[in-house]
C-alpha cells in the first residue's frame, strides 16, 4: 500500500502565544516547534502500523519552508519511508490542500491521512479539501482504522457517539485520538532519518482564498471571586444574579 501522511509543524502546546508586525504574524521568537500532535501521534503512527502489517510505503508531505525540515526529519525518524516538502509559505488552507492534492494526483496513493486539526490554527480543513479536489471519500475524526485488501473499516466520532463505516481505497481521513499510541523515535531511527529522501518540490500556482487580517489575544480575565465552600447558596445566587447563567 502507498500511504501519504500530511505533516505540519505547530508550536509546542505550552508555547507563549504572542503576535508581531502589528498583530499580523505569530511571534515565533523563543517558540519550540513540534510535529503537530494529531499528525504525528495518530495519522503517522497508524500509517506505519498499517504498512508494517500489510507492506508498503509511508510518504510524508508538508507544505512549508526550510524551517519545517526539523519536524519533517522527526517524522522520518519515527519511521516514514520518505518525505516531500512543497516549498511555500502555507497561508490559506485551500492553497495547502491544492498542493497536496496535486502531488497525490500525480503519484497515486491508497490512503491519505491528516491529523484532525493543527493545534495552532485548529482549522480541520485540509483533509476534506484534498478529498474534494481528488473526488475521494473523506472520513473525518477517525478514531480507528483497519485495512483488509482495498477495504477499510473505520470508526469516527459523530455528534453524541461513534459511527462504524466502510470505505474502499483510495480515500482520505483525518485522524483523532484513539487511532494509535505515540511512538518515541529511537537512536537508529534518528540516524536513519538523516539519509532518508526529503524531496523539495516547487509549489503550483493557486490563489489564496483567505488571509489573516490580524490576530487578537483575549482580554485578561478578571480576578477569581472566591466563595466559602460551606456556602453554596451564595454561589448559586451569584451564578443567577451576577453571571446570569442559570
Amino acid at each position, binding site marked *: 500500500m502507498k500511504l501519504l501522511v500530511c505533516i505540519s509543524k505547530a508550536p509546542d502546546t505550552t508555547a507563549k502565544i504572542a503576535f508581531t508586525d502589528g498583530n499580523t504574524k505569530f511571534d515565533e521568537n523563543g517558540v519550540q516547534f513540534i510535529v503537530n500532535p494529531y499528525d504525528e501521534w495518530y495519522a503517522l503512527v497508524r500509517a506505519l502500523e498499517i504498512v508494517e502489517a500489510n507492506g508498503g510505503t509511508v510518504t510524508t508531505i508538508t507544505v512549508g519552508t526550510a524551517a519545517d525540515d526539523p519536524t519533517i526529519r522527526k517524522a522520518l525518524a519515527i519511521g516514514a519511508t520518505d518525505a516531500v516538502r512543497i516549498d511555500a509559505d502555507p497561508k490559506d488552507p*485551500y492553497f495547502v*490542500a491544492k498542493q497536496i492534492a496535486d502531488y497525490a494526483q500525480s503519484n497515486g496513493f491508497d490512503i491519505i491521512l491528516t491529523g484532525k486539526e493543527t493545534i495552532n490554527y485548529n482549522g480541520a480543513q485540509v483533509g*476534506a479539501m484534498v478529498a474534494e479536489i481528488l473526488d475521494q471519500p473523506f472520513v*473525518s475524526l477517525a478514531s480507528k482504522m483497519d485495512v483488509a485488501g482495498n477495504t477499510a473499516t473505520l470508526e469516527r*466520532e459523530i455528534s453524541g457517539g461513534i459511527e462504524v463505516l466502510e470505505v474502499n481505497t483510495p480515500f482520505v481521513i483525518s485522524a483523532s485520538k484513539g487511532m494509535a499510541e505515540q511512538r518515541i523515535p529511537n537512536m537508529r531511527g534518528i540516524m536513519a532519518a538523516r539519509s532518508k529522501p526529503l524531496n523539495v518540490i516547487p509549489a503550483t500556482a493557486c490563489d489564496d482564498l483567505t488571509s489573516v487580517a490580524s490576530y*487578537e489575544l483575549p482580554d485578561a480575565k478578571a480576578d*477569581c471571586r472566591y466563595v466559602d465552600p460551606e456556602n453554596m447558596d451564595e454561589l448559586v445566587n451569584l451564578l443567577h444574579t451576577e453571571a446570569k447563567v442559570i
Partner: protein
Amino acid sequence: MSVLVFIESKNGKVTKAGLEAVSYGKRIGSTTAVTFGDIAESELATVGNYGADKVLVHRGINDVNDQQLTRMIASAAESCGADVIVVAQDQTGKAIAPRVAARLGAGHVSSAIDVPDTSNGFVVKTNVFSGKAFANISVNSSKKVISYMANSLPIVKGDGSAAVEEMSSDLGQAGITVKERKLQEGTVAPLPEAELVVSAGRGLKGPENWGMVEDLATTLGATTACSRPVADIGWRPHHEHVGQTGIAIRPNLYIAAGISGAIQHLAGVNGSKTIVVINTDAEAPFFKAADYGIVGDAFEVLPRLNEAFKKFQAGNN
C-alpha cells in the same frame, strides 16, 4: 446577502447546533436552510422561528456521507444564489464544510465566533491556538463558507414559519457505507453544543465517585465532561474529554471539580462564559482562569452545590 445554512436532525428534531447556525445566518442576510433525511415537514417549518424563509430537504440520503452532502449543499447554494454558506462547527460540519468550500472555490472560515465585518471586505473573527487567541480572517473569494462555533452568539427566536421544498438533485455515489452507529444514552445536549457542563478530574480519585458529578449534572440538565488523564486511564469515556486534544467547548457555565487546570485543559474550555473551579489546592492554576473559585473538597462541595441548586430550582417553581 443571501445565506444558505446546512442543518441536521436527530430523532426527528432539528439539532440545536443547526438552529443556532440558522440564527447566525439570519444575522448575515436572508436565509435558506438545507437538510436531508426523514424529517417531518411540520418540524422543518419551525426552523422559520430562527430566521429561515425556506427549508430545502433532500429525502434521498439518510447518513452523513460527505460526498453526497457536499453535492446536495452545492446544488442548493446554486439554486438559491447563496453568497454565504453557514455550517455548524461540529463533527458533521468538519466532514463537509471545507469540502463544500473546495467544490465552490469559496474561501472557508473555521471556528467563526462572530458575524462577518463587511465594513472593509469580509472579515470573520475566529478561534485559533486552541482558544488562546483570535484571528480575523479575510475572505477574498466571491462565495464564502463559514463554520460557526456553537454558543458564540445568542439565539434569536421569532415566530416566522419557513416554506418547505423538496430537493431532488442527483447526489451521485455514496463513497462511505455506514455499518453501525453507537450513540450515547440520555437526552442531554452533546458536549460541543451544551450550555451547562459539569466536569471533573483526577481529584475525584476513582470512577466510582462520579455519582456526585452526575447528580449535579442531572439537577442542572448539564452535560458531563472530564479532563484528559481521567479519560486516558479509562475512568470516563473518551468522548467526555475536553481540552486541547479533546473537544473544545464554550458553554455558558463550566463547573470543574478536582481539575488543576493545565494549559492544555484550559485551551479547550477558556471560551466558557463563566467558569467555576472547585479544588482543594488553593494554588491550582485553574483558579487564575476561574470566575468563581471554591477552595474545598469536591466530595463535600459537589453534593452541597447540588442541594443548593435544587433549593434554588424549588424556589423558582
